[in-house]
């Protein structure tokens, strides 16, 4: 299937996808995006926002209520899962407990009636790819969590899908294993050259692994773009607050100033809110930046490479600053301090 339609068009395209489940539950409201060939595309969002639903619609395990799915330019309407060039790594792995690792991996190729010798070759190369050579005869229950994870990925890749769909594949692993597996996944994606659509609710994972990512909320896409772009220029308050920490000031704009909770914030243009990342917020005495406020240092949190400062302004608003340099090291909790940032450090938001 990989050979088909290897033109320069996108590998996957979702147009106006909406899904209402039979019981009336809203799966997704409106989802549109395209994924380029060989891209690592992530969907990030809080629990229940519709990530799995979107993935299952791509896989053909769920029919959209309206909208269209295209894989390599081909409309998928009415095409069930078993006839789509996609494969999925499930949120709960779904390895067949009654089959060995090798038989799990061979499941897809055998259904496609590949000759036995070719099946053995595929299994061998997949086991090599996921670093599990020699584990073929074990049963899934005889593997560690990380190993099971890799079997699930190998099984899905054995069909040489046009698009590999991964539904929070690392969600159940502990932090150390997760970081290891993230690297392994990037390597596997690179080596296999497969297009990945990756679902997670871990923002660090999405930010570090993706070529591009979509932030989802309540069944809708909030914003799509490369991780750095989404982080630096969030388009909505949801993206700004969901990706990393931020100081968000909501209020009304008038003449270059956003009036918010008793303070005025100088901004670059009109909008409903402004987001200022903690790393752009200075703290100390005798600041020169355009936005400057007096407050009391409420907390100092040492984080290793950086330090966080919580400054309570007179108006009651809490401003968070994160500094790399040791500048603030003379400050102690309870001090009267100044905090502030430059006008262009604030990202103006309209939604």
């Amino acid at each position, binding site marked *: 299937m990989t050979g088909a339609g290897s033109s320069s068009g996108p590998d996957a395209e979702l147009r106006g996808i909406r899904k209402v489940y039979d019981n009336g539950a809203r799966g997704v409201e409106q989802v549109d995006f395209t994924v380029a060939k060989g891209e690592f595309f992530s969907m990030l969002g809080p629990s229940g926002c519709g990530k799995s639903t979107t993935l299952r619609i791509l896989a053909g395990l769920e029919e959209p209520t309206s909208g269209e799915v295209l894989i390599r330019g081909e409309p998928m309407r009415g095409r069930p899962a*078993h006839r789509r060039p996609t494969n999925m790594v499930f949120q709960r792995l*779904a390895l067949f407990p009654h089959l060995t690792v090798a038989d799990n991996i061979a*499941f897809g190729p055998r259904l496609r009636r590949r000759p036995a010798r070719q099946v053995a070759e595929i299994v061998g190369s997949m086991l090599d790819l996921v670093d599990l050579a020699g584990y073929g005869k074990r049963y899934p229950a*005889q593997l*560690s969590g990380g190993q099971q994870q890799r079997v699930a990925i190998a099984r899905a890749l054995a069909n040489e899908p046009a698009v590999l769909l991964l539904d929070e594949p690392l969600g159940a692993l502990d932090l150390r294993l997760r970081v290891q597996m993230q690297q392994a996944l990037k390597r596997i994606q690179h080596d296999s050259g497969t297009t990945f659509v990756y679902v997670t609710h871990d923002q660090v994972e999405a930010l570090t692994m993706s070529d591009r990512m979509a932030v989802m909320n309540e069944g809708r896409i909030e914003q799509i773009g490369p991780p750095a772009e989404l982080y630096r220029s969030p388009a909505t308050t949801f993206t700004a607050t969901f990706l990393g920490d931020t100081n968000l000031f909501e209020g009304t704009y008038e003449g270059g100033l956003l009036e918010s909770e008793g303070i005025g914030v100088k901004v670059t243009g009109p909008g409903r809110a402004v987001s200022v990342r903690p790393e752009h917020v200075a703290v100390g005495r005798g600041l020169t930046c355009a936005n400057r406020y007096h407050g009391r240092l409420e907390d100092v949190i040492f984080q290793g490479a950086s330090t966080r400062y919580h400054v309570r302004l007179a108006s009651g608003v809490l401003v968070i600053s994160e500094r790399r340099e040791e500048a603030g090291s003379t400050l102690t909790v309870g001090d009267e301090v100044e905090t502030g940032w430059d006008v262009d450090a604030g990202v103006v938001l309209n939604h």
Partner: protein
Amino acid sequence: MRRHRTAYLLAAPSVVLLAGVFAGAMLTLLEYSFHQYLPDGTDIAHTTATWQTFLTGGYHWQIVGETVVLGLITTVAAAVVGYPTAYALHRVRQSRWRYVGLFIIFAPLLTSVVSRTYGWELILGDSGVLNSLLEPVGLGPVELLYERSSVVIALVHILLPFMVFPITQSLGQLDPAFGEAAGDLGAGAFRRFVKVTLPLTTPGLIGGAQLVFALSISSFATPSLLGGGRVNVLATEIYDNVNNVDWPLAAVSSYALLALAVVALGVFGWLQRRTGRAEQGGVTAAGAASSGARGWSVWLAIVYVYVLLPLVIIVINSFSSVSYGTWPPPGLSAKWYANLFEQEGLGAATLLSLEVAIAATILAMVIGTAVAVSLVRHRMPGRGPLQSFVLSPTVVPKVAFGFAGFIYLHRLNLFGGVAGLVVTHTVIVLPFVVIVVTAALMRADATLDAAAKDLGAAPLRAFRLATLPQIRPALIAAALFAFVVSFDEVDMTVFLLSPDQNTLPVWMFVYMQKFQDPTLAALSTLLIVAALAIAATVAVLLARSGVFSSLTTSPEEPVAKVKEGSSA
């Protein structure tokens, strides 16, 4: 509704069978209850006369009363025996002995109702086991046979598993913290039982009582054989009315029995809901103290004897040298086995029973599994009513359905053939298959099915490759259960056989009505041996196939000890 086509297609065979056979028969029966046969043989349609006769005649109410009384006494007795038994089994610490105990309690289910009834006749008869024990100590002889008491004793024995099973289930949900609570003895243990264990197991107790009551009011073979004509309940009344060719009265009696079953279902359901609400106290731990362990063992031993005694007596009696059921047998011989093989029509009856049971089992397994998949894996409109419809045959007493089938098959000109027997037996076993398979499917992981489809398996193949291995033990259990129920069926089948047809249990029933000699003991012994052999084979098969069903792919699981290449 294109979206739900698969769901409806899967349900269709069961719906067609139930509508065509079950609903059709029951409606025909209803129509028949509005007939009246006059003494001169004229048949008047569209009249409520028969209903009036039934409802105003004191005799019929007496029979309804006797049915209810028999049901109540049996239920209470089964609860009194069954609850402590389930509790004692729950306290057995070694799971191996617990399984042995459960097997003993359930073993009689594998033998025919007629066999078990026959065993009790041997025990309770005038010169039976009981009187041979009582007389030397000056307590006998007691006349138990052909009285309500003998019917109750046998019914409790026959229905005990249905009481024990739900109670065992609800006890299993209690925290089995035996050791933890062991220090808490004496009055504390009793109070904990009353305050915690009893309330938490009440739903199981009510569930068991519901089953036993429903099955005892509709039981036919036992009151008919052990009541000796003196225990007149609705089930025997229907049979008598049919024999007296008063079909409208039999139809009315059938609906009276059905009404009784429905009322009982409602009452027990209401009880269940009431206690269900009261139970939400949030207590979890209820360990059994180790006090009185010997007392419980003695109790279990007594129950095991009670459960197994009729079977043992049958086996011993099959080698008796005399033709009457006296105890102990004066001598040994194998002549009853010889006599058995000379019986005319026995081979044909066995063959027909096997034929019907195998066909009904296969049919029920195929269409029952399909409708179970539809019920569990699909959320189509009409799912609730579909489920009720598929399970509805369990509510209808088999005697009533048997008589309904008798009239209905006559109308369809299917009476006397194998097809009629197969479809009616399928109706009876279908709900059991659906219940067992539905439960298994709900436990099975649906994402495995999705994974198989995702990897390229068409729906049917995905089911075979991903779901079937998960539910295989349940399917084997369901098939075995369906086979046994069909193979042993008497209450319904007595109505459905033409004069030149016989099934094995009906042959036994008729033989027991006419003769008392141990030929039946010889036959029952062979059946018991066969049942035990089948049960053992299935147990071994299940143990083999179930090895990997318990293995899950939970990622949190630690690395298991690995035996490379084992069981590949």
